[in-house]
């Protein structure tokens, strides 16, 4: 499964700690410095796919009175996220000297 920027941000948000939907929305916006503002429809579309792929799972919380569900990364999800981050690190390492090269 390939990971888009919104999905990467969702995974990074859950990598820090388990969160419910609204907290994920706030955290992704904060992480992207306001550049990525997920709509609720987009967020839950991504969560549904990630649940199906077993990259994330629901956990029982005490405060589930308002139908809030809390999500957390699974071991497989964390492993895949680490691979994606490593891929991005490699890409930035390769990209940095190239974009820094001055035009002649």
């Amino acid at each position, binding site marked *: 499964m390939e990971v888009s920027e919104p999905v990467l941000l969702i995974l990074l948000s859950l990598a820090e700690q388990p969160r419910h939907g609204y907290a994920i929305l706030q955290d992704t916006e904060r992480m992207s410095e306001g550049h990525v503002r997920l709509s*609720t429809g987009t967020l839950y*579309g991504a969560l549904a796919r990630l649940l199906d792929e077993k990259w994330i799972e629901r956990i029982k919380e005490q405060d589930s009175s308002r139908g809030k569900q809390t999500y957390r990364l699974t071991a497989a999800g964390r492993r895949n996220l680490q691979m994606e981050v490593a891929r991005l690190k490699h890409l930035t390492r390769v990209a940095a000297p190239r974009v820094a090269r001055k035009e002649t």
Partner: protein
Amino acid sequence: MLALYRVLLHLYPAPYRCEFGDEMMGVLLEVQAENQRKGAFAMLASGVHESGGLLYGAMREHFYSITGSYDNGTFSFKRRFAMRSEFRFPKATVGLMVVILAAVMLAIEKARAISMSIPHANPPVGPIRPEQFAIVQVLVAILIWAIASGAIGWGILFALRRSGIQQLSEMNPAAGQRSGK
């Protein structure tokens, strides 16, 4: 605005709505409460943003529930997010295609053998006159055939979806939830 969100949520497929509907409504309530504090413009912008997201999401889920795939470029997640699809052709299709191909090749070989056994059965064909071209009729026939094939294919997918076979295959009895997509 919340009434509009409720209407838009009803556009989602029923299984998806059952699983995520209440939760999504809770998040939309929190988003609205936050934007109320920011002012009228933030409320309006958020309303447009969320409504668009819900509409797009509903279309995407319906597309998925019919085809079993998001990977068509239109309903896939933005950039580099291709999910694995569980929608596959039956294995029998491959066998059937092999049988059809073998039958076609056999027919060609038989025809060639018959042609060789009767040396002067096929006189040379003279120049083809323009009135002998039947391109329009052929194109119309191909178009009708393509439309009919598409309609039959769509009908089969729709019937499968309506009959719940696909949803049943996605159920995980242990968890009581959808499993693979």
